[in-house]
């Protein structure tokens, strides 16, 4: 294997794939990157077994070949090199990195030992709007569960329903669901559960010019083709719980509040809330919403009122302030609507500008002390 390319191009590519290289692993091969010199292209791949990233860049290939190199050592060497054309050549079990005024040699592992990455068959690729994809990711992944006892909830459910595709995430206390129109996915795939880690990587690889993302649904994995970068992730074993049944059809009380005002007030009041429950009381009257909390540990109390517009009877309920704040930050509209029926039933939050079916968050209340 022998190839040449500018230092910065090589360093940028390595930095991209390093995101999945574990610093330590009981599987030593995972701390390596796979370098493949193809016809005028260089493919750099890394994997942590859950996610793999392959970056393809143009380069001058003199001799085709492949080798696995220690990822962090390679990156640290390349990063520190001055900007110049660098040449990399493999000989036996080592590679030599040649720069105009010197060279570095590092040991390699045979490319065969590197875990086999799924083949990318672009013919099976379905194009999805990158804007829609990124929006769905940003508005849902935050609600994924961290609880390992219910593995399906550790991922985001991606399903196609009629002419719409939707992503859903929940941890049992809150839920986020976003749907967009996409007829291309109709009937293509069954429901799949994707680890949020890979979804959160996608926005980092999408640039402004990229309008569409290619997606390949595999039996055990999903592949995202992001113009020069291939992201692959293993799927989480299902089934996903029936989330639809916990979303209330409608509530008899609706309150519209200015989103920013509420978010800031919640964050301020929650400073004095219980450090475990983060409970904040919402006392909602016809035109005012009063947030209050007290904390016996620090002997503090907090109270703030903001304007609101309530349809229905006044109500008092408790919420985890962190959940409310996180949910509010996912909305773009100046106002949000809370809809609920009782202080002990799930309430939904949505924007008056977008239909509930397209974007909705659900949050379970906390029982208020008598």
């Amino acid at each position, binding site marked *: 294997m022998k190839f040449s390319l500018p230092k910065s191009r090589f360093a940028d590519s390595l930095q991209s794939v390093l995101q999945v290289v574990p610093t*330590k692993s*009981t599987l030593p091969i995972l701390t390596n990157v796979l370098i493949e010199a193809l016809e005028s292209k260089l493919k750099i791949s890394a994997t942590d077994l859950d996610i793999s990233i392959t970056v393809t860049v143009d380069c001058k290939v003199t001799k085709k070949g492949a080798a696995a190199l220690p990822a962090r050592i390679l990156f640290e060497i390349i990063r520190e090199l001055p900007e110049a054309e660098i040449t990399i050549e493999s000989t036996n079990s080592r590679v030599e990195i040649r720069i105009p005024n010197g060279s570095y040699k590092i040991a390699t592992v045979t490319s*065969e030992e590197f*875990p086999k990455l*799924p083949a990318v068959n672009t013919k099976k690729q379905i194009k999805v709007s990158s804007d829609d994809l990124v929006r769905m990711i940003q508005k849902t992944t935050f609600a994924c569960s961290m609880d390992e006892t219910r593995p399906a909830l550790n991922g985001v459910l991606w399903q196609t329903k009629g002419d719409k595709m939707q992503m859903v995430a929940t941890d049992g206390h809150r839920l986020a669901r976003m749907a967009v129109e996409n007829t291309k996915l109709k009937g293509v795939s069954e429901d799949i559960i994707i680890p949020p880690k890979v979804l959160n990587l996608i926005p980092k690889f999408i640039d402004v010019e990229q309008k569409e993302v290619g997606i390949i649904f595999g039996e055990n*994995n999903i592949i995202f083709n992001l113009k020069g970068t291939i992201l692959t992730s293993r799927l989480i*074993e299902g089934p996903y719980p029936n989330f639809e049944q916990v979303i209330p059809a409608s509530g008899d009380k609706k309150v519209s509040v200015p989103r920013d005002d509420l978010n800031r007030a919640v964050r301020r009041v929650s400073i004095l809330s219980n450090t475990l429950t983060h409970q904040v009381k919402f006392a909602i009257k016809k035109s005012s919403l009063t947030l209050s909390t007290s904390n016996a540990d620090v002997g503090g109390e907090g109270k703030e009122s903001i304007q609101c517009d309530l349809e229905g009877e006044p109500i008092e309920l408790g919420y985890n302030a962190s959940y409310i704040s996180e949910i509010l930050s996912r909305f773009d509209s100046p106002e949000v609507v809370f809809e609920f029926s009782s202080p002990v039933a799930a309430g939904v939050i949505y924007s008056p500008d977008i239909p509930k079916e397209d974007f909705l968050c659900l949050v379970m209340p906390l029982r208020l002390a008598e």
Partner: protein
Amino acid sequence: MNHFDITQAQPKVWSILSRSFSNKRTASTYLFHGREGLGQWPLAISFAALLNCLKPVKAEETGLIFPCGKCRPCRSIYALNFEGLHFALPISSHKNSDEMIDLTNELLEQKRQEPFKLFLSAQAVTIPIAMAREIKRTLTRKAPKGIRRVVLFYRMEKMKASSADALLKLIEEPPGDTVIILTADRPEALLPTIQSRAQKIRFDRVPEAVAAGYLMSNCGVKENRARLVVRICEGNVGQALEMVSSDEEDDGSSRAVGQLLFRSLFTEPKPEVVALITELIKDRDRGAAESLLGLWQSLIRDCAYYADTGDGDDLVNIDFAEELKRLARFFEKSRLAAAMTDNIKKALADLQVNVHIHISLVALVLKLRSHMPAAEQDRKIAGCERY
């Protein structure tokens, strides 16, 4: 010994595993039980290789199937570097996950060098719950296509019961394309709920020729010595390797000291025996004291066996055979062997609870001597002095 031969260490076990594989009736969870060092690790690795081998090889004579050892999955599995092979190993206490990975990697490196090597640690070891949780998390992901995942919980008895409880569901019903292998010295050491969920496979002693052949080819030990060590270790290759390496360290002198002390029990007056113990056994070396008592148990067994059968071919300690035949006379009529063995067992148990080593050994010597009537002792000691 190559990968093919390693399965010969436990022919019955391999036969069960190979047939279950060829009949497509592989169990989802196995429990390999038997003393550590009988080949649980290499067999588990070979079975993982078989499950993932691209070109399994069928032996004409036996019809058994073996991994080819050449394809990419086989090579990666034998190098313990395969994406579908996961380990939960007993390690000493650690501060964080990085340290946990370092300790695990140290053990894996030892096993890469020597698959039969025993996991010995001066500190208490446990299988950390964090390690088990990480495996559990990994298994929630769908397996890559064409890979049978294998999870090896090595020395499962070292996992705390509360941690093991958290794995019940996983062990009972592993995800598709996943085989879980548990190993334990004794199945009873595991929770009944775990035992009942696994197919138990017992590991017997490794055939003498196979074990001796392994020592000869891997440690450069000569045949007579290899056979002796294998007999002493009752066909346990892991223990035999330990013995060979400790013999290399002390040049076999501890064994010679053990034999000398054993002989002196019968041939020297009490004060001299006690003086010898004081002189030859270091007070703080618990390992040396345990080895000495282990050797004595084996020598007593040989004496009793020879006294009963007069057959010198099946003696374990063949390097001490002539002396043993002479000492066998002490074991002819009495129940000396049973009484001595009981006392040694008690002394070994005492050593585990931090008794004063020297006092414990002296007390043992006095007890052992007490089993022989004084007059008989004097007469036989006098008789022994003649040879």
